[in-house]
């Protein structure tokens, strides 16, 4: 298991090598990439902020949950912070598994939970010069005790 928040460009090939083992018949690599549009506006780049320590711990917890739920081998998740240009990888999730069904299900659940739970934020930089924090998802607090 390998979870990181990093300001350095993400080396996806390295993540794939990191997770693959000889028991695994499937490796799935998801990459979130900065795209040139959002909600109908032309975007020239994104700036990511994170609560780095908590985000790393949250990612580790999510990886543990997902590992216990699906028959997967190893998982690696890396999320980038700082200023990213169009086409740069903002997040990469590599999952290795003996069989592909578990790899697909685990990968999907990892990215969905990352987007709902992990304290990371993105600021859009628009072609017209403006900037704005993208609206996000309010993470759920635990039940009141």
């Amino acid at each position, binding site marked *: 298991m390998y979870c990181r928040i990093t300001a350095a460009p993400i080396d996806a090939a390295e993540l794939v090598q990191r997770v693959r083992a000889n028991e695994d018949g499937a490796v799935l690599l998801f990459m979130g990439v900065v795209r040139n549009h959002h909600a109908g506006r032309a975007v020239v780049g994104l700036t990511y902020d994170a*609560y780095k320590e908590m985000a790393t711990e949250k990612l580790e917890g999510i990886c543990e949950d997902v590992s216990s739920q699906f028959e997967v081998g190893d998982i690696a998740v890396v999320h980038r912070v700082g200023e990213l240009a169009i086409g740069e990888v903002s997040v990469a999730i590599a999952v290795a598994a003996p069989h592909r069904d578990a790899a697909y299900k685990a990968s999907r659940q990892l990215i969905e939970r990352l*987007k709902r739970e992990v*304290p990371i*934020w993105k*600021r859009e930089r628009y072609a017209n010069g403006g900037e704005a924090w993208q609206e996000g998802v*309010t993470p759920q607090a635990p039940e009141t005790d």
Partner: protein
Amino acid sequence: MSDEVVPDAVIQVKTLFFAAYRDMVGAEELDIELPQGATLRDVVRAVRARPGGDALPSNPALAVNREYASSNRVLENGDEVAFIPPVAGG
């Protein structure tokens, strides 16, 4: 030297602000003093009473020592309290 709560004892917590909340508060972190027994709700009230703080929602998502926590959570001296705007990773 007794176990009784001293009425005017105070605790200090470190508050952290990210993304839009950092822009509102104008700070990355603030040390906040609170009476012993204070909850997260009290921290939010204290921060919102500061200049710019009223732009924060009255019931933001919060984390204590890097775990999401509900607003009735009682704080201890030295806790790290993060104000968590709606998340948008990916």
